[in-house]
């Protein structure tokens, strides 16, 4: 076990997987010569050559489309989107091609493609560079969507994504790249579709993922001081979602809060709340609470930007309200 950054953890995953399987390659803008905007590809071309670590033109539709074609032809592409916002530029390739091909062609082929997408709010990057769009992809059958919150999961989930024979969207929060944490030695893979109970508790279930998970853990400590024992669940994957982990916890705590940075309307929290309302209503002792961003694009001005972010105090307050 060593403490390394989230960015280094993803780099280790890439490196180990490229070592293990010569069919794995990676392409994207400014990744090879520059090492990626967050240093997440640094040193890879020196190890694996510029034929397997490829700088592309600014041509997102061609990059993702070529990734799909390459996967069909037997290799295992990892495609970097620079910023998650730019997936929107290649929406046809993601939604109509990548997600559907396996099913539409009756399972004649698989689609082992990983789309890496740095998302989330960082200091005033404004509306076109700050989005968390994961819920869109949760809505598309055929895609898998992972959302690591710490270096260990970042590494383990990326390894799993690369080994997976289905298309995986890998959302990595821009504010997480520099954060450090313990990462186990060796070939540790975190299975896709498995949530993790990060800390057990009996009074309320808090479900979260990605950067917000850190705020949830801070909130859990504060709540413990107030005598509220919260159970925190890190989803790690939002498609397929680990329904069992959520249901088991809710059956125990009888209260549920879901926290994410993305817009609350139509978000991951909405889906979880609906699932629990459909099948677990009788267990609940309090209304389900969702914390997410208000229904506006992310504003530039620091004065406004802070109003769309969820902070630890918001979580503590919300929990206190339903645990009264």
């Amino acid at each position: 076990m060593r403490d390394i950054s989230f960015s280094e953890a993803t780099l280790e995953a890439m490196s180990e997987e490229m070592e293990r399987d010569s069919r794995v390659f990676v392409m994207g803008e400014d990744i090879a010569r520059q090492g990626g905007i967050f240093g997440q590809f640094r040193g890879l071309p020196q190890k694996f050559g510029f034929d397997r670590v490829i700088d592309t033109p600014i041509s997102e539709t061609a990059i993702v489309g070529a990734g799909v074609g390459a996967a069909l032809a037997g290799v295992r592409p990892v495609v970097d989107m620079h910023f998650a916002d730019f997936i929107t530029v290649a929406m046809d390739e993601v939604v109509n091609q990548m997600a559907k091909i396996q099913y539409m062609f009756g399972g004649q082929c698989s689609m082992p493609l990983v789309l890496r997408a740095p998302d989330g709010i960082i200091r005033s990057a404004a509306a076109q560079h700050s989005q968390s769009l994961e819920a869109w992809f949760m809505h598309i059958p055929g895609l898998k969507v992972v959302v690591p919150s710490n270096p260990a999961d970042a590494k383990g989930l990326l390894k799993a994504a690369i080994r997976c024979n289905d298309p995986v969207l890998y959302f990595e929060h821009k504010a997480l790249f520099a954060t450090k944490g313990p990462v186990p030695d060796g070939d540790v893979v975190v299975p896709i579709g498995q949530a993790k109970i990060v800390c057990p508790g009996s009074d309320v279930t808090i479900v979260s993922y990605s950067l917000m998970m850190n705020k949830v853990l801070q909130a859990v400590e504060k709540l413990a001081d107030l005598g509220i024992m919260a159970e925190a669940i890190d989803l790690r994957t939002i498609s397929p979602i680990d329904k069992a982990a959520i249901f088991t916890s809710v059956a125990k705590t009888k209260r549920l809060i879901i926290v994410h940075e993305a817009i609350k309307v139509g978000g991951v929290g909405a889906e979880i709340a609906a699932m629990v309302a459909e099948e677990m209503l009788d267990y609940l002792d309090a209304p389900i609470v969702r914390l997410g961003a208000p229904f506006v694009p992310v504003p530039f001005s620091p004065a406004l930007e802070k109003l769309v972010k969820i902070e630890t105090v918001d979580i503590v307050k919300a929990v206190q309200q339903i645990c009264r």
Partner: protein
Amino acid sequence: MSYDTELLLRLYRQMAKIRIFEEKAQELFLAGELPGFVHLYVGEEAIAVGICENLCQNDFITSTHRGHGHCIAKGADAYRMMAELYGKRDGYCKGKGGSMHIADFSIGMLGANGVVGGGYNLAVGAALAGKILQQDHIAVCFFGDGASNRGTFHEAMNMAAAWNLPVLFVCENNQYASTTPYRMTTAVQDIAVRAQGYGMPARIVDGNDVLEVYDTARDLVEWIRAGNGPMLLECKTYRVKGHYVGDPELYRPKAEVDHQFASNDPLKRFAQAVISREWLTERQLTNIMAETAELIDQAVSMARKADYPAACELFTDLYAEREVQDHA
């Protein structure tokens, strides 16, 4: 060829305004005063100014993530731009847009765009609107060499040509797209050749020579206004600053940058040309610099003191607040 003195003074004043605005923005960003990302237009002033001096207020432009220069050249106010960079309420976008998204609809500046290649089709649409409204404005679309590899470039060029729309596509070929040199992502030497594929005429100019840009743009704009359809103008230039302020620029030798700026700075080149031909005096140019520096300083000190937007403004502007106007 000789030039009207007023025009020469205006060209220099506009270039100076961009240069000083950008240097100030750099200084403020590095001092930690400005949030977000800032992409500078230093060294490319001749393009925006040479072109926009040929436009009328009701002509439209679309811009890029490197948009400050285009805004100023089209006539935007330095204070409102600076206020936007600070995220203040007086800014052009009330602080909601920031450096990458400045727009001034009152002068036909349809916005800078954080999505590379996002502006082409907006320009095509703005030109199309002229047909529908029976107005004779034209639309100018600024974009980078890197952006010309986006699919939107090809779709926009084709549609504009097929429909004979009044669009001037202006490629600012500054040799770099973020950290990647032009030759590594683009097989052709000149973006201009791509126009052929859409049956569109194209020209190439020295983008660091404001007089050459101005003269060529005047001809092209006239041609487009006469109803001859779209054109592509490729301006060869060089990105002397990093991709964004704070870019460590590990991807190119500093000597290359220094050499380019020393030998090819559009302001210096203009000054040398007009002074040696005795069209303007050194004194006139120094005065312009001093006046402009004062103007920008004022803009900064006002922007610094301006208010941030209030919390309730988070929700304004998401939808039109007034009913749709009836034009009948």
